[in-house]
């Protein structure tokens, strides 16, 4: 009897830890998006086309050459949420985009971009996600991540996070960079 109660209890406990990954199209942007929730960590990624990247950064007053460079990258809009009751730490610098040929690509994030921009005297430091993130209960963030891949290129995103001292990892399979903008 106690085994039975334990089984019922465990089955209910197990629910929030199951990764629910899905892919669909963002109705507003008609771009593919991926979402998963696992062990209190929610990650959503939406393809961002080069035209949109250009528009967003130009509107912030960044010089054309700087905007052109970032628009050549494979860019995603991300929303990361802590849905647990404890602090979550995510080192995005450890995340890798693994392409079909097995090559692991690092994401290019805030400090890498701002380092380049500061050399040109640009102090802008928004829109791009930071390498190190900590989220207390209820915290969330949205921002861009970039990786040096071509339009339409496919990869698996291997990502990890730490919750209550334990490291969890997961992967988004078949994530695809936004297609090239029609000229």
């Amino acid at each position, binding site marked *: 009897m106690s085994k039975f109660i334990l089984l019922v209890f465990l089955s209910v406990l197990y629910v929030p830890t199951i990764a*629910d990954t*899905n892919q669909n199209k963002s109705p507003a942007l008609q771009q593919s998006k991926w979402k998963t929730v696992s062990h209190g960590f929610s990650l959503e990624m939406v393809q961002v086309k080069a035209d949109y990247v250009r528009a967003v950064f130009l509107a*912030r007053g960044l010089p054309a050459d700087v905007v052109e460079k970032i628009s050549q990258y494979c860019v995603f809009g991300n929303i990361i949420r802590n*849905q647990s009751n404890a602090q979550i730490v995510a080192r995005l610098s450890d995340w890798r985009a693994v392409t079909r040929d097995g090559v692991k690509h690092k994401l290019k994030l805030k400090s890498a971009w701002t380092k380049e921009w500061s050399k040109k005297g640009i*102090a*802008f430091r928004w829109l791009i996600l930071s390498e190190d993130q900590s989220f207390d209960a*209820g*915290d969330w*963030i949205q921002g861009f991540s970039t990786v040096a891949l071509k339009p339409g290129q496919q990869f698996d995103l291997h990502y990890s996070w730490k919750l209550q001292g334990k490291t969890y990892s997961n992967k988004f399979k078949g994530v695809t960079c936004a297609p090239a903008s029609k000229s």
Partner: protein
Amino acid sequence: MRLLRNPDFKHYLLLLILMLLPIYCMAAGTAKTPTNYRLKQFTPPIPAPDFLLVDMDGEKHSLKQYRGKVVLINFWATWCPPCIHEMPSMENLYTKFKSHNFIILAINQWEDEERVFEFMGQLKTIPSFTVLFDPDSKVSSAYKVQGLPSSYIIDKQGRIVYRAKGGRDFDHPVIVEKIKSLL
């Protein structure tokens, strides 16, 4: 309890749980977690960095001048959708407590007065709290802000008591109670 001892009943119950589990899993994965009122509490509170910024009318404001009041500092930008989304709830909170030594300093990032003024004119409810300008993001850097919006609640002694990364419903009863307890 007698029913639970019946092996047939146990099997039916187990079958029912197994049938319902996938539905529950899907719901757990997609449901919005109602954590938009949760704040990280600093115990003990930490000193809030002082600053000197100008408002829409060019008047200077320092944090120090508000010692003896509870201050909600909100870092935001017009191009940040969750920043805009949380503004009406900030206005509600401000309306509730403005006559009780509570103020809001909404510190805009990387934008000029003209742009913010134009933006304010498009809002359904024009915020009546103070908007300040941090054009080079020096103040947000001092507060180690990683993304927008981010908010800090400062007690009457000028110390950071709570922090929120990402948008919140500031007129949620839980947050209202927290502010009330500081006043």
